[in-house]
């Protein structure tokens, strides 16, 4: 796995983590406007970085095929497969 891919994944996971934590906080504090704003911000960040990642390294979700000749979801490698050794 290239360092660029690792860096993108790290940014993606960071945004996802922040989005998820604010989401769960909002479950018990649904009227907290500040948390709602933060959640929307991180959610948007996650979507933005996902698009960049998918354009370079293939779909993250099974529906996100970009080309029209191959169902890219089936392409190796899968997350549990190491590519560096």
């Amino acid at each position: 796995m290239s360092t660029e891919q690792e860096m993108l994944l790290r940014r993606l996971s960071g945004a996802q983590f922040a989005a998820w934590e604010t989401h769960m906080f909002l479950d018990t504090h649904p009227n907290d406007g500040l948390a709602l704003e933060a959640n929307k911000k991180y959610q948007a960040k996650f979507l933005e970085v996902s698009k960049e990642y998918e354009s370079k390294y293939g779909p993250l979700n099974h529906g996100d095929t970009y080309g029209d000749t191959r169902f890219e979801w089936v392409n190796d490698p899968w997350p549990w497969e190491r590519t560096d050794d």
Partner: protein
Amino acid sequence: MFQYEKKLQYPINIKTTDPKLASLIITQYGGPDGELGASIRYLSQRFAMPYPELKALLTDIGSEVAKLHSNSTIF
């Protein structure tokens, strides 16, 4: 219920293998005290939960621990 994403939640890079630690970690995956059982318990208990905030929370935590990928990639 949940959607699979073709990525890990957190990067995994095991440099030295440790069977003893592996046998400890696997008890957190399956078995009576593992994430798998916990996930199903959250998702079942939410049907009896009267408070809307906590229905949401049980749903979210239950589907979150269903994402056991980091844990199983270790093996």
